[in-house]
């Protein structure tokens, strides 16, 4: 913890502050200026060019009546909950790697986990798009080959969903009821390199004496995870949780690439970020899109504040 110094002393050392000027300038220009511009334009009817008309709070009152925007929060809520569960495989893999006794093997597994990061996310998305192809995609072929498709057809018959039909390939991104499940399935087995590395870093700060004491007490491996490892990496879990929520709430690239600008059949894949994009680039309502963005920003800020206040980790 740095020692406090008086304001007079700080002023005497003014030259040191010049070191941060370039970074501040860059952050100001590339982060704060666009945000400020978005706030400014949210009070205008603006179609992206020069023509803009000041309309006060009209955009914000329109948001209150925008049922597409509010419905998109339902979708994003489901995805957030699903993403919480999708954090588990990363934690699990981090624990497995951490428990390897050989440092060399630990190293190689870390490399193997990190290597897929070289592949751009867009490429992964396109590969998954191909997986979801109804006629030639891997997913349907696997379901057919393993007989799971037949099982799904029987279950469908029982509940009368009308989604899984014999002889008709499953349209994962073409059937409204399957859109959200597809967005959840995407990325299987849900092992994110960044997550694994962060959890691993947390696990490696746990001293060996803790494990020795646990062994002496006859603790099972699962109990070790539950009572030792998980509590001690809760800081990292909390960090990943916050990043995940922010990323999920803001993100729309996945939905855009897989489903298009309309959010797919039935608009089931519409999320707040995609709706913002839709309003800006399809309807030409950039001012309204800025207002949506501002609303989303406030929403995420409130969630982050709640997380900071109530999701505490006892040291």
């Amino acid at each position, binding site marked *: 913890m740095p020692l406090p110094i008086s304001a007079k002393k700080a002023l005497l050392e003014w030259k040191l502050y010049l070191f941060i000027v370039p970074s501040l300038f860059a952050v100001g220009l590339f982060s704060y200026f666009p945000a400020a511009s978005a706030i400014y334009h949210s009070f205008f009817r603006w*179609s992206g*060019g020069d023509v803009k008309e000041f309309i006060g709070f009209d955009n914000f009152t329109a948001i209150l009546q925008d049922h597409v925007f509010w419905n998109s929060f339902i979708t994003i809520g489901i995805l957030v909950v699903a993403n919480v569960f999708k954090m588990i495989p990363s934690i699990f893999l981090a624990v497995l790697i951490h428990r390897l006794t050989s440092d060399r093997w630990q190293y190689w597994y870390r490399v193997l986990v990190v290597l897929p990061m070289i592949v751009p996310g867009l490429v992964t998305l396109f590969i998954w798009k191909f997986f979801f192809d109804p006629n030639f995609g891997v997913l349907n072929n696997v379901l057919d080959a393993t007989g799971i498709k037949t099982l799904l057809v029987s279950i469908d018959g029982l509940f009368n969903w009308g989604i899984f039909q014999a002889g008709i390939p499953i349209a994962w991104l*073409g*059937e409204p009821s399957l859109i959200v499940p597809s967005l959840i399935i995407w990325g299987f087995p849900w092992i994110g390199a960044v997550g694994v590395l962060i959890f691993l870093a947390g696990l490696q700060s746990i001293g060996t004496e803790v494990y020795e004491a646990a062994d002496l007490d006859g603790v099972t491996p699962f109990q070790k995870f539950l009572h030792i490892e998980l509590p001690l990496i809760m800081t990292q879990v909390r960090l990943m949780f916050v990043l995940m929520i922010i990323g999920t709430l803001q993100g729309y690239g996945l939905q855009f690439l897989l489903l298009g600008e309309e959010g797919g059949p039935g608009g089931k894949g519409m999320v707040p970020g995609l709706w913002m994009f*839709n309003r800006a680039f399809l309807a*030409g309502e950039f001012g309204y899109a800025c207002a949506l963005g501002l609303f989303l920003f406030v929403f995420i800020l409130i969630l982050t504040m709640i997380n900071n206040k109530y999701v505490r980790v006892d040291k």
Partner: protein
Amino acid sequence: MERILNTIGLSLLALCFVISLSRIAMLNFGERTEAGDKVIEIRMAHWQLEGGIRTAIDAMAKEYMKRHPGVRITQIPIPERIYRNWLITQLVGGTAPDIIQVGMGSTDEHMARFFVPLTDIAQKPNPYNKGNDFENTPLRDTFFDGMLGGFNQNLLEYYGVPISGHTTRLYVNLDLLEEITGSKNLPKTYEELLALTKQVDDFSQNGGRQIIPIAGSRYNSPILMNTLFISQTQKKMLELGPPGTLTENAARTTEALFEGDWGLDSHEVRSGLGLMREIAEEMQPGFMQVTRDDASFYFVQGRALMIVTGSWDATSISQQAGFPFAATQIPLPSKQHPHYGNNVVGIFTEAGGTAGMSLGLTRASKHPEVATDFLLFLAGRETNQLFTNTSKWLPSVLGVEPDPQAKPFMMQAEGYNPGFPLVGPSGRADTNRLIANNFHLLVGPSGSVEQFVAAIRPNFIPYLLIDLEREERVIIQGIQRMDVQLAALAEVARSKPEDAMAQAKFDMISAATSARDRTAYFQQHLIRKAKDRVQQDSK
């Protein structure tokens, strides 16, 4: 040692900085030719990543650079998916290339603000036609469409030089066709097309090889389905009036909807939707989730017998397909069709088709004279011949002999105007979104026309009202700008009574402003009718 290492590090950093600085300076202040003159760089952006185009542009650029050694033409191809966003960012950011392909994502306001009107050069002969029979012909009359492809109806100026033409066709794999049917006869009517698809289904079931009759995607399928839909509203469009309506007029069609002359339950709309569903059943399941590239992939891989797409894909397909293919006009129901024939007037004319791939000149250009000269070069007959020979695309200049591969795509002049679509202009974002979000009910395996209509009915008129109000704002914004332009041209015409061009421009703008005023008033009239209808429906 540490000091030495620090010095080396700092020197490396300084060296990199100096190199990048000099590179930027060179770009900013220009390269020099051998003679010491500055090299002028003209950047040209477009979204045509299809096969043959980039090569054709390269070839034309090289030819131009040969004639003008002090100029360098740089091509910037941008993927279609992000073109709209890229364009707006470039225009607003002031970093736009000298020449940009217009037509996607460029609104009237963008055109007026960021592009240079080309009306002046359109009215003069093209110097690059010297020596041929167009030597003294105004540029606009050298195009097959009178350069309408580059004309902005609202701003009344030419903003682009179009260098190609496009049509849509049904592509057929001839080898596969022969294998399935025993002949290479292409379907001429919708009935024959449907019969062919049934033969393909039988072949797939009995032949052991899964063949898709028509490769569909969310890009390709609407081309076919919308063509079939508008064949059913062809007769109705002529009946709607008012007198003089020979072409589809979105405003009039919308008014007719509110007056009850047609609707979601009228027989031509139901027939159109029925046609769309019928043909959708012959595409691969889940086709609305796949993209254009996937559909093309099925076709070139021989997994699909047919695909509907534009002439813009012909070169790409011919480069990738290992089989001969033919292209024919999209077959429409014949008048003898027991169910659909009654609504049809006749085959669609392509006579009014406008030239495409329109290239505009941006105000951000640092060398507008050179960029304009390059545009004129591209519009010359000789260069357009080079274009069609290299790209295999249709030419836009009269007298240019299309490449043999492009000939099946030549515009069919004889025919009648098509009918009206269900929604109207693509700018009707909310209504189009309603259709897109419920389209699966029309084309899905367990869907039907009734389900689709029932799903869109509650919001069809309300969403249309939202779109009409948005359209009205855009029209009024346009008139607001035109008013200022009218005042300016009036003052210039008043001050320069001897200037024929000034008088002509004022003449044009006053006629155009009247036309826009009529549009605005009619739009407000439509909005009133829409509101009445919404109120009526809610009771």
